[in-house]
């Protein structure tokens, strides 16, 4: 397509997946640069998937030092204190991911998400952030949007046996093959801030309850000045009170956000490994789609709850946007 052919080594290694998405897509993947920020179990899964798929490079950012909790659903870090002592999560994951596929450059950058400037984001085609506050998500999303090129932006979070993915592909054009004809398709994505500002009343009744519950928790953490995930069952009364306020401010019935769901989300904030695998898998697939331009991308939220087993897509954007 663009003149460069896959090497013999690439053809042999990627044989089975080239049969799924084609040689063009594989070439595009090998030129894509991916940034991840905030590494827990779900991101570890995602990194594995994207490195195996054969992206050009993967850059890891997470300056936190390893502790028991960080290791709980992360298969990239050996639980040996002699190995992990003194190293950051990003460094440890990098050590492990480098072995997964010698054709992918995996590296570490230090720093805080809010301190990275627009130029930094310009180096990437895909940015995935996790374990971040509401403000940090909005800020990073804005920086990506200000760039003239498209940077596909994703946030992902898992709590208890639930997971959420948000996608912003800005203005996304892709071709879709249906039978013999190829249709040009176009999708307009809202940024994170605009998406979560859509009045609840404007959303269809059947909208996933997880969407609302995640917004309540996010707001609670922001209002209380907590780090992401820093809630416990002791916070339940406060969370339920905030839910009431939000529901009444948005003039929706409180049944939109079941108390039992909020209780699960505040009680158990650690990730559930099977859900990490599922959300990390869906996220990997979406990033591959966005890079390769093949297949309908997700717009713009995805939810999974192991309790009912449904993996649901929700389009949360201003009706007229």
């Amino acid at each position, binding site marked *: 397509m663009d003149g460069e*052919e*896959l090497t*013999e080594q690439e*053809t*042999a*290694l*990627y*044989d*089975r*997946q*080239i*049969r*799924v*998405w084609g*040689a063009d897509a594989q070439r595009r993947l090998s030129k894509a640069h991916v940034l991840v920020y905030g590494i827990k*179990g779900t991101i570890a*899964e995602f990194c*594995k*998937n994207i490195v*195996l*798929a*054969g992206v050009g490079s993967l850059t890891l950012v997470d300056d936190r030092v390893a502790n028991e909790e960080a290791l*709980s*659903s992360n*298969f*990239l*870090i*050996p*639980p040996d204190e002699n190995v992990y002592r003194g190293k950051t999560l990003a460094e440890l994951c990098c050590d492990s991911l480098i072995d*997964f*596929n*010698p054709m992918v450059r995996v590296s570490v950058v230090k720093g805080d998400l809010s301190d990275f400037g627009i130029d930094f984001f310009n180096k990437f085609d895909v940015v995935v952030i996790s374990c971040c506050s509401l403000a940090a998500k909005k800020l990073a999303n804005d920086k990506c949007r200000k760039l003239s090129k498209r940077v596909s932006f994703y946030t992902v979070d898992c709590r208890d*046996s639930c997971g959420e993915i948000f996608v912003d592909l800005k203005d996304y054009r892709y071709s879709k*093959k249906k*039978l013999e004809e190829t249709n040009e398709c176009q999708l307009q994505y809202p940024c994170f801030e605009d998406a979560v500002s859509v009045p609840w009343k404007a959303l269809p009744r059947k909208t996933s309850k997880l969407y609302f519950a995640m917004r309540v928790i996010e707001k609670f953490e922001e209002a209380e000045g907590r780090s992401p995930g820093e809630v416990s069952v002791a916070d339940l009364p406060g969370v339920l009170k905030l839910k009431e306020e939000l529901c009444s401010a948005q003039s929706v019935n409180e049944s939109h956000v079941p108390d039992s769901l909020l209780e699960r989300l505040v009680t*158990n904030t650690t990730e*559930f*490994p*099977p*859900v*990490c*695998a*599922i959300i990390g*898998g*869906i996220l*990997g*697939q979406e990033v*591959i789609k966005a890079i390769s331009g093949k*297949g*309908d991308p*997700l717009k713009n939220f*995805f939810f*999974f709850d*192991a309790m009912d*087993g*449904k*993996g*649901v*897509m*929700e389009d949360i954007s201003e009706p007229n946007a």
Partner: protein
Amino acid sequence: MDLQLSVVKGAKVLMVGAGGIGCELLKTLALSGFQDIHIIDMDTIEVSNLNRQFLFRQSHVGQSKSKVARDAVLKFRPHVSIKSYHANVKDPEFNVEFFKQFNVVLNGLDNLDARRHVNRLCLAANVPLVESGTTGFLGQVTVHVKGRTECYECQPKPAPKTYPVCTITSTPSKFVHCIVWAKDLLFAKLFGDKNQENDLNIRSSDGASSSENVVDVFERREGEDIDDYGRRIFDHVFGYNIELALSNEETWKNRNKPKPIYSKDVLSDELAQQNGNVVQDSATDDGLSVSAMSSLGMKNPQDIWSLSENSRIFFESLRLFFMKRGKEIGNLSFDKDDQLAVEFVTAAANIRAASFGIPLHSLFEAKGIAGNIVHAVATTNAIIAGLIVIEAIKVLKNDIKSYRMTYCLEHPTRKMLLMPVEPFEPNESCYVCSETPLLLEINTHRSKLKDFVERIVKAKLGMNLPIIMQGSNLLFEAGDDLDEDMIANYEANLEKVLAELPSPVTSGTMLTVEDLLQEFTCNINIKHREEFDEEKEPDGMLLSGWTQPVSASEKEKEDKSINNGANSSDVTVEAVEDETGVVAVGVKKRRISETSEVAANAAADETNHKQYQVIDDEDDLVVLDGNSDAGNKRKRMQ
């Protein structure tokens, strides 16, 4: 959550398969807190596994999958007890007693045969089974608990696609027909076992030449120059045989006539001569690295070669087989990992395709079709493994009401990418889990016991070590520990027609067939029938009382058929030869209002995206069987 933790910690789990799904599953089980895991896989690691079987590295190629997977997981979860078996799950050591020690069995298999085997052992041992499969972006997870949900065999599985012999030998219309011809007929004829029955000349022998002469054509004559031999074969199969077929005008009334192709048309003498000179002789070449492409300086397997390029590859690969791999000739069978074999088959299929006006394909595509290669990506396997663990935990908690079958879809349906469906109740007429007797219509005066064993007991009932009894009389028994008298006795029985057996089998007789390893018994009522329709009932017998596997090509079936891979006399379901743990079982059209269109749409979409036909051919791939459960009322649980 506490209950969950304790069941997970206390559970003893058997995983069957350490491939695509297996690697993901072992990792997710270990992370989820499982402490006691046993894992069986007979395969060794190959390069094409490494794009998704993330526990394996280049340096592990050739080693046991189950052992390397175990070691890799112990690196991040050193305290989990993992026992690995580099063995076939069908080995006798994995008997019902072995299965009984587990709380749940998790399958990440790649073939129907092994899936059926494990299903029966789980039923016999009364151990719940979580079954799974993926292909490309599609996948599913199902739960099978004896007496509660349907077993793996309650619903018929799609049979491998077969092609009528004359489509392959005389009237190909799709590229896959040319591949089957090149692989199962021409390749087998030139390089395979000479004693094997082969339909290569079935049509031409109708014509002028006697069959004796025909056989001679393919033999390299004493002292014959290899290039002369190659041209002779080329001219015979692509030229003379096509001329012969053309002489039968009737055949071409409603079809496009093929064009005979002779070597002189596609190669100048100069070119033909050159072929031989390009190759450097190197004594160190090991068999599988010999390649016609590299000796002709062709690099890209994605290129579609011209007719002349295909012809050069044809001659060169034939030459290389004789020059470099002469010792293997007579014993070769097609292997998708044998580069030279793939090159020969690609070239031969393309030349035939050119003759019949069928579009040519690249080596990459031809390899996929010839090798029945399953599409596979890491993400789907990871998702499916996560779903398996979720289902396994429900099974361990005995949380029957929450059991779900889950489909992983490529395109959302009703907003869902992961779609849970309530499992079905056991099928009351399932011969496997409900022990319903089957009915066999057969000509008891003409069919031999051998036919019954091959076509029914092995092919249809999927038994590996059968015992056949009439009342308390043993008619046949398979196994290693038989004494000579018994073997002789059974051998004699196999050659007898049913009605003339020591205890005659006639209309009204009930036969009991048992597989000792599977601890699975099934009764078959015999009904004598004189005549069978050769087209519709090619086996010359008809098994009923349970829904037959739906064959996609039922309509096409003629006197005899060939399936892509297994030779024509072998009717058993063909295992997908891929090394992966990834084969999707059909996203079936369920008779449930909510989901019926869903899966259909998903699968229909898939069909549209398919690059080639063969995807229908795998034993248990996504196949639409929209009508198949019409006569088959299925109840959802609860």
